[in-house]
């Protein structure tokens, strides 16, 4: 593919006190695509993003944005990008308009130009009416929209979004997705991190699954799912004590690629569910395993995640939250 490359990351490593947050990361982002970094908290997504927006210096390796090195030409890179941080980076005492005016000055826009652009952006994110109220009166969704307007103010070539819909209600979420799609339609390149599988699936043209500071796999959601191949058969057993027996009976059978235990049964990756189902049922019968429920489906993104990281996204997110 000879698509224009917007971002080039080569062998990027960042260590903190001997602990590698990301190690030996390499990938490219093409112009005009929505590129996602998917992974649980602490996987290294934010470190990667912060390096790309020049806030972190890599321990080794390089990153370049539109051909400019993020360390040596940090100033040039900063001119070309917009950034929407994960935290609601809002000054509660300033109004929405004042946020944008402040950033206008920091991007060195002439007053008239800034004024025009601010009016457009407030309209775009539907914040015209509350624009002159202090941000402390804004709802979570409104703050997020202001965040995005701030990221768009420099009219960036590339927009970086860090967990754009974290903690938002469903409606605001869909709204943000619409903005992101619209920006892509306008030709903007978008790089985003997320720990929501559905968000990555719906929004991203290509995504990298990151876990433990390494890229586990990379491709379009469809490619990743097809790449996994076959189908997933999910079985729920009446008697969970029989799970290990069924696992060993199925493992290694022709047409069965991988067997993973779940709290209530098994997830079985098979080449084709039509061929594998009879064999699975027969094994279950032979072992006297009573099935409570059985279903099969094409691989979903969470199956891809499990296949490449050995655990499910929700498990790892819960782990983090439980800490």
């Amino acid at each position: 593919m000879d698509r224009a490359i917007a971002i080039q990351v080569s062998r990027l490593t960042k260590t903190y006190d001997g602990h590698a947050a990301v190690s030996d990361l390499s990938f490219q982002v093409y112009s005009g695509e929505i590129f996602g970094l998917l992974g649980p908290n602490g996987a290294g997504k934010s470190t990667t993003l912060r390096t790309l927006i020049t806030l972190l210096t890599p321990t080794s390796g390089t990153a370049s944005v539109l051909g400019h090195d993020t360390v040596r030409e940090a100033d040039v890179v900063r001119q070309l990008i917009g950034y929407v941080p994960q935290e609601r980076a809002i000054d509660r005492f300033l109004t929405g308009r004042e946020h944008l005016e402040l950033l206008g000055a920091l991007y060195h826009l002439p007053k008239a130009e800034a004024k025009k652009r601010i009016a457009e952006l407030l309209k775009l994110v539907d914040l015209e009416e509350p624009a002159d109220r202090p941000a402390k009166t804004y709802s979570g969704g409104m703050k997020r929209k202001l965040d995005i307007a701030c990221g768009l103010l420099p009219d960036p070539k590339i927009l970086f979004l860090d967990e754009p819909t974290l903690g938002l209600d469903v409606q605001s979420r869909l709204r943000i997705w619409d903005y992101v799609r619209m920006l892509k339609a306008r030709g903007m390149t978008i790089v985003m991190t997320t720990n929501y599988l559905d968000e990555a699936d719906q929004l991203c043209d290509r995504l990298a699954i990151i876990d433990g500071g390494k890229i586990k796999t990379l491709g379009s959601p469809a490619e990743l799912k097809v790449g996994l191949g076959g189908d997933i058969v999910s079985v729920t057993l009446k008697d969970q004590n029989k799970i290990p027996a069924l696992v060993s009976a199925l493992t290694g059978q022709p047409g069965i690629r991988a067997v993973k235990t779940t709290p209530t049964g098994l997830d079985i990756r098979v080449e084709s569910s039509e061929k594998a189902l009879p064999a699975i049922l027969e094994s279950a019968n032979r072992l006297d395993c009573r099935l409570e429920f059985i279903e099969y489906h094409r691989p979903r993104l969470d199956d891809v995640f499990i296949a490449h990281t050995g655990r499910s996204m929700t498990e790892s997110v819960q782990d983090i939250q439980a800490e």
Partner: protein
Amino acid sequence: MAQYWQEIHALTMRWVRRLSREKFSMLFTLVQPMLFWLIFFGNLFQRAADVQVTQAPNYISFLTAGVVVMTVLNNGLAGGVDLLFDKENGFLERLMSTPIHRSSVILSRFIFVMTITSLQVLVILGVAFLFGVQPATGLLGVAAILMIGMLFGVGLTAISMAMAFSVKSHGDFFSVLGFLSLPMIFLSSALVPLEAMPGWMGFLARFNPMTWAIDAVRPLILSGWTEALPHVGMVVVVMIIFDALCLYGSAKAFRRAMG
């Protein structure tokens, strides 16, 4: 250069806006030193303080210099607080992702803190004036007091900002702040002249840059130029060394935090 100025102006105006929206907080920061220290403390100790010891017509006139420098101390040490909150809520990161000169944020903070402190010092001198304290060196002396305040304030604000960039949580920041502030005041000539202190306290107070600042401000208010000038000359030297150390340290902390 025009761009640099545009950044600093916008960032400084942000601090001004924030303050103007926090009217209560503004009122209390402004009123606290003169109400608590100057009016209450000054009048309370009026008769307890020995004029022979303080070498001043009354305790308020003795205390004024101390309150002025205390205000500089507290404003300076608290100067990094807003940056601390910016760091914690991600606003600082947003600012740093824009193509601004790395020093703009810090410079805007210096400008803001110095301006507010100077205004407060003027208010304190004004209130003291109402209690009959007339600066012996006149308006030029007031200008000298402001200069000393700024010289001391720059170093303190630098320490505070360095701390804001280095601490893990704002709890740590406020603990250190609380720990520093009062001992700095008691181990200085703010409330009692050095000669009247217990020996060990007087000894320690001599190493407190605050003492040097107060010992220069006090004759500017009480005595006159001949008495004050040597002290003013001395404090300028002390403060330049103090500021250089603080700025060097904070530049290191800033670079570490931003790397």
